[in-house]
């Protein structure tokens, strides 16, 4: 049996050069639309997800702003207070005093 000629297979089928392989998406417009859809899709999905899960207790970062809010308005007590914010709950004692303020005047 004779070997087939180079580049010619059985039944007369020839090898196709590699560079002639047609890609799945030839249009750059379709590619750009695909990239936009993936990006904006993730934006929309994350916006919905974040809106439904506004308060995440196991988030890696908890802003310290609520502590500043808690200490900005001291109550006249040293008992532990609970300050509940929209994001997190901070428990702590607020240092305060109930004594009257002293005023010193310069004496000549």
């Amino acid at each position, binding site marked *: 049996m004779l070997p087939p000629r180079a580049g010619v297979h059985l039944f007369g089928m020839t090898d196709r050069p590699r560079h002639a392989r047609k890609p799945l998406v030839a249009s750059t417009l379709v590619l750009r639309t695909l*990239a936009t859809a993936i*990006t904006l899709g993730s934006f929309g999905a*994350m916006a919905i997800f*974040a809106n439904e899960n506004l308060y995440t207790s196991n988030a890696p*970062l908890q802003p310290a702003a609520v502590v500043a809010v808690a200490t900005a308005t001291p109550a006249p007590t040293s008992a532990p207070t609970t300050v509940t914010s929209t994001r997190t709950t901070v428990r702590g004692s607020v240092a305060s005093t109930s004594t009257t303020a002293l005023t010193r005047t310069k004496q000549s």
Partner: protein
Amino acid sequence: MTFDTELIWVLARSTGTAALVALTLSIVTGIALRTGTFAWLSHNRGVRVVHGFLTVLWIPLSLGHVIALLFDRYAQIGLLDLVIPFGVSYGRVAIGLGTISAQLIVVVLLSTWLRARLTTGQWRAFHRLSYVAFAAAFAHGIMSGTDLANPAVAALAWAAALCVALVAVRRVVVSRGVAASVVRATRS
């Protein structure tokens, strides 16, 4: 939803995640330009067009993320924190990495716009900073991203990072293969 706090908070989170997605796509398409990783999907010109086009997506998303956090009274991030990293009172490293990432991205963008004035070597050196920028952005997301506390979202983020790593490894392997074949050709 109240506009002043909750909408800003939702915008900050969603723009941050979407910016990371767009940045991932940009990095992956950029790396794949040399290796033809996406030859099955499109020709190289198409991949290059998408790589350039993605800046139109991730620049506004990144800006939106930063602006939303500037207006968020809980985040307590000031304009100075955009210039000087690691100056925030909480989450110093996590937020500082985000600042570093943003600054590196600005450098990469500027070098791209000034490409005509740079040598190929200079442009390539600047452009390679995008790898560091992506790593910093990913670490920033993992360490500070509220949504990445969710396992499903974290899995997607890790999948994106794995995708970048795989394409990068393939590029290194292909580059070494090309270099070895050049050496063989010059010796023979």
